[in-house]
């Protein structure tokens, strides 16, 4: 294992360097909307430095680091892909994983040409599950066709979007599935070194992942010849130091390299020039966990599920205000209403005002749009997003002004500072809507929101703008009360 390696000035970027998570309360969005359940804990979360945005325990929000309760896991898709092994179980050892057919996909792939794996993934029409929804097969093909002596594959285990915790459960309860997915990706693109970039907020995942890698090494799954017959492959875990933006792939690569994790301008894309300038495939955990299933059952079987251009399944993470919080693997295209009302059972605490799907830096979905399908283009049309699959509902305990303050406060805290709109705009709005402040100028608010959406360098700023825009769109009346018109 390595930690992010850097000089003191770069280290100062990360808020959790040297900080202990012991006794820390979470300041994430699910905990924020559930703050009234334990006001004292929330006060602690919001006031103590450094802030901890999302420990991945949204199902018991407001949460603390020590809470080891597990979330309910439900595989409701017609053919579960990601969560099948985890319903009331965990698969932490190599033996247990193999007993369930683990590494058979890798075995099968090694008997075929790498291009066959790429073809299969393309056929599956799988899209990245980390937020952007980029076709995974196309990314694989780009890295596979780049000519370079050394290539890398990186698992993005920096599940930073407050509200999503599927990757934490996969990392902690099904580590070999991630490793097999990573090995398949490496074989497909011709990489021999893999990395898992693990966020600091998931400390329990580290020993489990390390043990799984050690097991895979000693069993000869990894090493100079994968499974004794394939090309060389090994995996290193790099632990982050606290920074939401490191979930963005180019910032993540900079972080592994020990550089300040600013996003890189593209082109060149990581598939051409990524880690240390080499062609690099970056995929999030859930995406990679899909790969073994796709290789074993065929891309067509995967693509048979889904809706419109969103194929296969997606795991959604329901937060604590639902009657039945937990992880649900659903077929893409499932109406949000089914997720909220049928699976989640609606809210236990009051009348639902809306849900944040896919993290706070995306749109809010009000109840009148709950019939929308959980699908990339369809949610985007409503100003929302599939994102990471976090589903955080809020009720009348939370005013729109408070929600806006929470999200801008989070975004300002996590802004890298590279581009003007995000560095200054996020903080300006946070100050404008801070509790106790006189009403701000509505025009100025809208100008900053517009600049965030239109001019930000990366998804952090544009996502923040999209969030605010969807609030303006769906909650204009309540919001207007927070501002004076100029």
């Amino acid at each position, binding site marked *: 294992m390595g930690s992010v390696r850097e000089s003191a000035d770069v280290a100062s970027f990360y808020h959790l360097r040297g900080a202990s998570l012991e006794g820390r309360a979470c300041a994430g969005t699910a905990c924020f909307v559930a703050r009234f359940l334990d006001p004292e804990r929330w006060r602690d979360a919001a006031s103590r430095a450094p802030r901890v945005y999302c420990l991945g325990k949204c199902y018991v929000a407001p949460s603390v680091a020590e809470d080891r309760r597990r979330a309910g896991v439900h595989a409701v898709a017609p053919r579960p892909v990601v969560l099948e092994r985890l319903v009331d179980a965990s698969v932490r050892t190599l033996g247990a994983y193999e007993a369930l057919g683990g590494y058979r996909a890798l075995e099968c792939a090694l008997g075929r040409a790498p291009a066959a794996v790429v073809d299969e993934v393309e056929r599956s029409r799988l899209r990245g599950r980390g937020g952007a929804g980029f076709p995974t097969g196309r990314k694989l093909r780009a890295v596979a066709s780049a000519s370079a002596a050394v290539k890398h594959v990186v698992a993005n285990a920096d599940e930073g979007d407050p509200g999503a915790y599927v990757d934490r459960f996969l990392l902690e309860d099904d580590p070999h599935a991630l490793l097999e997915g990573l090995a398949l990706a490496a074989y497909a693109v011709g990489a021999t070194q893999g990395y898992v970039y693990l966020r600091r907020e998931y400390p329990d995942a580290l020993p489990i992942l390390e043990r799984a890698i050690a097991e895979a090494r000693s069993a000869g799954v990894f090493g100079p010849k994968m499974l004794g017959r394939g090309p060389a492959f090994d995996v290193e875990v790099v632990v982050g130091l606290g920074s939401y933006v490191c979930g963005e792939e180019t910032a993540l690569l900079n972080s592994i390299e020990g550089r300040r994790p600013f996003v890189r301008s593209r082109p060149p894309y990581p598939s051409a020039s990524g880690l240390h300038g080499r062609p690099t495939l970056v995929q999030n955990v859930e995406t990679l966990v899909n790969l073994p299933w796709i290789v074993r059952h065929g891309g067509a079987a995967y693509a048979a599920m889904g809706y419109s251009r969103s194929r296969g399944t997606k795991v959604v993470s329901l937060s604590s205000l639902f009657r039945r919080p937990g992880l649900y693997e659903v077929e893409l295209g499932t109406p949000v209403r089914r997720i909220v009302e049928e699976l989640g059972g609606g809210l236990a605490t009051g009348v639902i005002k809306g849900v944040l799907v896919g993290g706070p830096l995306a749109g809010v979905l009000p109840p009148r749009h709950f019939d929308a399908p959980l699908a990339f283009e369809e949610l985007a049309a409503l100003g929302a997003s599939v994102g990471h699959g976090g589903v955080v509902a809020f009720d009348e305990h939370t005013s729109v002004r408070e929600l806006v303050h929470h999200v801008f406060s989070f975004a300002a805290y996590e802004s890298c500072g590279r581009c003007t709109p995000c560095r200054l705009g996020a903080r300006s709005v946070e100050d404008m809507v801070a509790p106790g402040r006189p009403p701000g100028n509505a025009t100025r608010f809208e100008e900053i929101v517009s600049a965030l959406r239109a*001019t930000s360098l990366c998804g952090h700023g544009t996502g923040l703008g999209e969030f605010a825009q969807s609030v303006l769109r769906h909650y204009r009346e309540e919001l207007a009360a927070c501002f004076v018109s100029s």
Partner: protein
Amino acid sequence: MLRVVLNDAPREIDEGATILDALRRAGIHVPHLCHDDRLEPVGACRLCVVEVDGAGRPVAACTTPLADGMVVRTHTPALEAERRTLLRLLAERYPPGAGDNAFLREIRAYGLEGALAGRPRPELVDDAHPYIRVDMSRCIHCYRCERICNDVQGQFTWRVWDRGAETRIVPDSGTTLRESSCVSCGACADSCPSGALVDRSTLALGPATRWTRTTCPYCGVGCEMHVGTRDGRLVAVRPVLDAPVNEGHLCSKGRYAFGFVDAADRVTAPLVREDGTWRTVSWDDAVRHVAARLQEIVARHGPDAVGVLGSARATNEENYVAQKLARIVLGTNNVDCCARVCHAPSAAALGAMLGTGAATNSFADIERARTILVCGSNTTACHPVVGARIKQAARRGAKLVVIDARRIELADYADVHLAPRPGTDLMLFNAMAHVVLAEGLVDEAFVAERVDGLDAFRDFVGAWTPERVAPECGVAADDIRRAARLYATERPAMSVHGLGLTEHVHGTDTVMALVNLALLTGNLGRPGAGINPLRGQNNVQGAAHMGCEPRNLTGMVPIDEGRARFEQVWRASIPATRGLDLMEMMEAARAGRLRALWAIGYDVLLTNPEAERTRAALAALELLVVQDLFPNETARALAHVFLPAAASFEKDGTFMNGERRIQRVRRALDPPGGARPDWEILCDVARAMGRGDGFGFGSAEGIWNEVRAVWPAGAGIGYARLEQAGLQWPCPGEDHRGTEVLHRHEFAHGRRATLRCLEPRVSSELPSDEYPFVLITGRDLHQFNAATMTGRTANAALRPRDVLEVSVADGERLGVRDGEPVRVESRHGVAVLPVALSERVPAGALFTTFHTAEAFVNRLTGAGLDAATHTPEYKRTAVRIRRETPPGRPRAR
């Protein structure tokens, strides 16, 4: 060619451009504050966002590559509104008040002056640096300072701390810029668009009102600069962005050390010393006096009793006139210049082996080389802009081999650093050649086609195994092998070298041994390769090339070869006697054979070795004329006449840099008082001596046109063409584009070059029990040679004195403390220097600079000379150290 539509107008733009490039080419201004052509775009400020049809959101013009068919709009109401919002966000944190910078110009353009509302933050002001004022309350976080420091200078001084709205940009000292690793190149202040980093001179003297493009007066890199003047005063220097040599970069000397032009002790009227006191005289009197005294001495002792020293600081035109005057007015070939004390061995070696005594390639080849071999050159200190380019090449993955006795800064970036004992490079190169042959790394095709003498060389070098030379060089045999393999296999491999190779008793042979390596490995005649002496002074290449050389005429033509042609142009005869070089002149002066010396822009006393013997030589002269800006040590101690000269900022002409590039020098301001360009003074004296016919020049250009008439390889380099850009000779015709790489298909003297079998010579400066240390002398980053110029600027604050670098191990052994003054004694003299304990000097070696008269380090250096060229052995003097205060006894307070 890409077809695009920019604001409704169809355009055709070359591929490879960004949208911003295209907009600028089309004359469309979009605001941008984080962009700098010297840097990779990062898209931080976001002001340059434009709308592109089909793109979901606006895109940053600076980072987005132009694509065929793009339809771009730059000033829609929406975009302008976003820009206004962004500028307002910046303005709210920026202090109100007057000022002029790119940021404030945009603020005014958008009518946002009223939005400037930042509060003063005195804690963010740092006034400690002599040249750069820091006020981070004016920082707009474009990151240009940090990026240019990293990606151009390679210094990593500016560090970014924290993140988001709390992001701070701080020097690596954590305190002031003065205390940081800053090398004062000024790139950050040049790039800063918001007044956070400002040149102190601009604050003190006001912004420049006129800018004149010229060439730097310091080292031989030949950086182009814009000289800013205001009310006839020099107030600022900025790098030229599109200069091929420096690509928008400068060093602490070029960028900031210009204050000497109006230093208080600038001499502005001619002086004649009578009975020990200086008397101011008119130019007429001075010229008549010098002419009469010279005529008298020539009449009495013959023309060869007179010598002239041209100047590496003066223009090509002036050096041409100086040697012409020596040869046809005074009638002697006793004319030389300071190339004698630096790279004469390189010129001799390259001339003898390849036919042209100059660098084979160009600085741009640094970016083309896969391996760079740096020998005997502390490049980042002495040729900082080239040093920075090498650092960046190494960062980008070029292999770097450093051969230097000291662990110089570039060694930190090197794949292999060989630290041979001073003067042992020749045997090291022989051993590298041995490895190349023994391991079959010879470029067989190249050698077969273009190289002679391989069999004899193979026999010779067979005995020079790495194991044999390792003990004497103090280098591990395996490291020699690694270096040789890189140079021979990771090609093209480019060699750059400095005076660490040449200032030895076998300096010429050492450079020849290096040329052997290039011949064996085919690293000649192609881009990214070659043998490239880094010339020490702005025009040292030109001074010698123009004929300030006893044996050569203009164009490095041996006298007998060029005599007829030159005599025809000059309509005068060239003397037949063999001329004396600088070191021979000193000998002749001591012997009473040389009676008069005219030294132009040259502090002979301070910079020649064996200072006491130099003093004796100069004291024996009947007439010593010093022509300079300042009363240098030579003038102060011994001159009879002082002729005040114009600085290069005050005259027109050309310099020739180390890569054979002729570049214009342009007059940016008037010389003070009666100071005059060297060429005018020379022509006046020629006229006063009755030889006005060949010296009736009316301008520098007129002189240059005569140079072109006698020098075929420069015939195509006219002033009109130089207005566009410098040109590298050979450039024989107006339609010739100049020569970046020499010897492409054949060598200057023919198809084939011959390998040389070279044995090292024995130095009389080997360490002994009595003198156990080897002293190396050289230059520092902030000072320049005799410090005549830099010593009169705030660079003196950056490097106030010469210090003796002592290895930490020796320091501990001797019990000397940092800063403690010690007596350094050689067989030739004594100097007292403060100790600077250093990790970069190996045990047994010492290093010091020779910049100041206070230390007068050349009292220590000896009589050893390069056998072929008489270049002094500055790089190896056996010395011992005596503590000024015996250990154990507290120093008196």
